[in-house]
């Protein structure tokens, strides 16, 4: 199983590279660094950077996984995978976990570009990757439910709104306990601590944040799997 999962992940990454997905990500990342270093006042960085960090792998991650799914649907290449020992679970895992690698690295570039190189680079990668995984899962689910791209775009709006609700807590506008069940909330907390350089609190709060993020991820994955099954969504059984 592991070998097949690795091959499938390599396939996903290679196809995305040829489709220029990583190149697009890194151009956006470089552009973001330039904006942060030239336009955003230093005192606003601890607020603006976390919001941007979860937005890049978040909203773009949804789009990229969906773009790959529409591409595969157009080529009908996924049907060929259905007659190999690769299972649908391995395929979905490869698609989601493989697609999360590039957005994570590209977003880490933004983090380094704005805050410089220190311990925070290592600490920011796990939550970034988890956010990218959740976004990929949402992209997979939406692109499976909506077979037309225009409907998919409309379909992304509700999850992006829900995904962004923790910003209300983060900016102190409307704290609400239920936001804790949205994966972006924990990520924002961790990104905020990193941006403010609160290393002392980070060990404790960061661990709690990651645990909370895992719990939210599990919850969201269960919902996504249920919806995919209800809609007979994943055509490759």
């Amino acid at each position: 199983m592991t070998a097949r999962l690795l091959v499938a992940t390599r396939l996903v990454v290679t196809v995305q590279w040829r489709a220029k997905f990583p190149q697009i990500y890194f151009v956006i990342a470089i552009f973001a660094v330039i904006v942060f270093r030239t336009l955003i006042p230093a005192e606003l960085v601890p607020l603006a950077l976390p919001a941007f960090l979860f937005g890049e792998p978040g909203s773009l991650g949804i789009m990229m996984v969906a773009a790959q799914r529409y591409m595969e649907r157009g080529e009908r290449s996924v049907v060929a995978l259905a007659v190999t020992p690769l299972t649908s679970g391995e395929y979905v895992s490869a698609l989601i976990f493989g697609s999360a690698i590039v957005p994570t690295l590209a977003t880490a570039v933004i983090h380094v570009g704005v805050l410089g190189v220190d311990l925070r680079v290592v600490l920011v990668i796990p939550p970034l990757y988890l956010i990218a995984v959740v976004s990929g899962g949402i992209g997979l689910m939406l692109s499976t439910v909506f077979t037309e791209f225009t409907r998919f775009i409309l379909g992304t709006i509700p999850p992006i709104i829900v995904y962004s609700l923790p910003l209300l807590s983060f900016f102190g506008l409307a704290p609400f306990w239920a936001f804790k069940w949205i994966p972006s909330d924990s990520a924002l907390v961790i990104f905020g601590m990193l941006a403010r350089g609160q290393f002392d609190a980070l060990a404790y709060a960061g661990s709690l944040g990651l645990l909370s993020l895992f719990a939210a991820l599990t919850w969201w994955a269960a919902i996504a799997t249920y919806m995919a099954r209800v809609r007979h969504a994943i055509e490759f059984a």
Partner: protein
Amino acid sequence: MIVSVRDLRFRYPKSGVDVLHGLEFDIPEGEIFGFLGPNGSGKSTTQKVLTRILPGYRGAVQVFGQALASQRADYYNRIGVSFEFPNLYEKLTAEENLEFYRGFFDGPTEDPKALLRSLDLPVGDRRRVAAFSKGMKMRLVLARSLVNRPKLWFLDEPTTGQDPQHAVTIRELIRAQADAGVTVFLTTHDMAVADRLCDRVALIHEGRLLVVDTPRVLKLKFNERTVRVEHRVSNGSLQREDFRLDDADSKRAFLETVRTTDVETIHTLEPSLEDVFLRLTGTGLA
């Protein structure tokens, strides 16, 4: 038997009617079994059931002596599936497509370069598959289906989009695989391919199996034993006459014609598989 099918029925979800109505057939090891019928007759659906792409069938289906429903992912290590349309990763090269694909199988696999050569596809070509012609893509799909050295090979319209030379290459490859012991399930509406290649054929129409036999027996069964002669008459014009060999007078007339006229051509008029299908259903295969 490699494949044994009894009372196979299938209905697509959200459809109120069966598209397969109680199919029954067996395929022994090493046979090229042709599954013939017009578009929409249920050929591809049957292949999709046998390759486990379509679950939810009714009836008893055994492959490799085991119920199809109980087969697991390992089943795909033993079968090869060539589709009727090009379903490749178009942003990858031909070799990359084969290399990735063979990484999904557990047992020994074929060398992608050798497979490409066997189907007259370029080796070392850095072009992406998107730049290939339809015929090249279809040959690559065929090559990909052999990458895991299957024991049972499903082919759906394998000569689609091929020029005559490559159609011959494909027929020779199929024959070579069968000679090596591979069982071939060949779905097609191309009578010429079926007639030249298949050990036995099944004719399917509107989801029902009409007949299963060798092409020769089927053709003889519907043969009217007629000879067509073209000869020159006294004014130089070409005359065509049909003689029924079952009729004594007609047979005498045939012999007299051959003896006394300037014969240009003689042909027996045994039916083609398409004629057989036409007589059984009243409709053509196209």
